[in-house]
């Protein structure tokens, strides 16, 4: 549970960097390419 500790004291930037690092370590996506930044995504209207 180390990754849960002290986040509330971190700046947002540090938290984001920590999170990105964890995601990079935990997920490998091999084949798929990230879509270009301008690819639209619908806003979330969740639960239905």
């Amino acid at each position: 549970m180390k990754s849960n500790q002290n986040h509330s004291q971190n700046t947002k930037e540090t938290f984001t960097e920590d999170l990105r690092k964890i995601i990079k370590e935990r997920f490998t996506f091999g084949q798929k390419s990230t879509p270009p930044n301008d690819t639209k995504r619908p806003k979330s209207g969740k639960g239905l």
Partner: protein
Amino acid sequence: MKNPPVFLLFPPGWIYTTGGSNLALPLLKGYLEASGIETYLFDLNIGLSDYFKIKISNCKIESACEIPSLENLNKPYYLSQDKMSAIAKPYGATWDIQLGFNYDGCSFSSSDEIRKFSEFNSPFDSYYDEELINQVEKLNPSIIGISVCSAAQLLTTFQIVRILKRTGYSGKIILGGNIITRLEKSFLKDWVFELIDGIVVFQGEIALSSLYFALQIGKELDYIPNLIWKKKGEIKKNKIEYLPQKDFGRPSYVNLSFKSYWGINYIPVLGSRGCYYGKCTFCSIPFAYGNNGFLGHDNPLSVYDDMVNGFDLSGINNYKFMEEALHPAILRKLSDKIISENFDCEFEGYARLDSFWQDEKFLQNISKAGLRKVYLGLELITSDKRGLLNKSDSNKALEMLKKFSDAGIKTHIFTLFGYPGTGIEEAVNTIEFVLQNKNLIDTLDIFPFYYAKHTKVPFIDIINNKAEDWALEHKYMPAIEEVLTMAQTSELCYQLEDIIWNEIPKWLHPIYRLYSPWSTKESNNNTVIKEQFTYV
């Protein structure tokens, strides 16, 4: 002389990417008509979709879902969204398929802003004039009831109320619905009660019927349950009574324009009222039902009759159960009845991960009856922190997902990240779990934790903000070190959702959801959806 009817309105602001109507007004209509009160309902939200011709055709939805890439799913979505944006833009506003209509700079969380912006012109004014006011003049209803079920409907509700007043409507205007019940005390403002005649909290069946008859004979309104109204200049709150099981009514779907709803259509039905568990610490849904969140189960045979009546009226044999959690007491008898009657149907509903779903014989039976998809509140994969949510459900999520899959029942997974005391590890583990088992999952949502009003969550402190008096969620600060801030929770969800958008976009995309629960497109093409009646 004919008594004036009741006219029930569902205002614009509700999400368009559902296959059927909201159930609140059909339930009220059915109850009132069984009480001898002529009642009409008007879904203004879906009416606007027809008026502006923004509906996405089933043909385009089915085509997009053949290969459900983000690009393919986006094509039909943004054809309509761009059209809606263009309609709203000249008014300094946005109109979103899922989030409704709003002016730039208006917060639904602020009563002052709703008051101010509801006086603005809207792109819907001509529709209200041509369609709504025309119907009001023809029907001359004694009561107009408006059901507010999403925050976005607050703005349009007050715009509609102002138009009704301006055009000289002199009957009673009563607001109700989930949002009104949740706002209750903060909703009791003088300017609100200058525009409307009352609000009804919790269930409106008995309140509206009692009000109707009281108005007919000039009786005092003090005895009408759940009504908050103005008596001699003072706002008066009548006693609260939850709808007893014996008074559960049957929904009436007459007046609904079935063809107008987007996607493959369903009829909303209800087997139970509320959540039979109702103790998840983060969930505010039980509050709005009252009675600790649960009013009881309906008679499964009556629910079956509702399904058949809906089919006879509309030609639609897909159904969505709207209760917060399907219960075996309903499902067993209902499935037996469907099978014994050889009634051809498909249905879906929300569910808890409770152990009865592990019964393979039970699953096979309800699948045979027509259950096609369940929407499961997983929130987080099992860990030593998941207990903080007080879900008290099974820890055998994977086993259940496999059994649902084996029975031919699709699954939607709700996840919830950033709940106080849980953090990155629980969220990342959950995303890892769903991706590892992606073949068992049809769709998924990632929710950030919100501190909903009427819930009590430990380890966080509320930040009071008087300007946001109509907020449905509190802003909060961590009370202890281990809790994520609101910004961190938001970032966590954003980054993990980004993974899903990149890997399996159909899980999150609303277009896919308009199609996925139901079986082959061939069978849906054969469905003949009947036209509905006009009001008068």
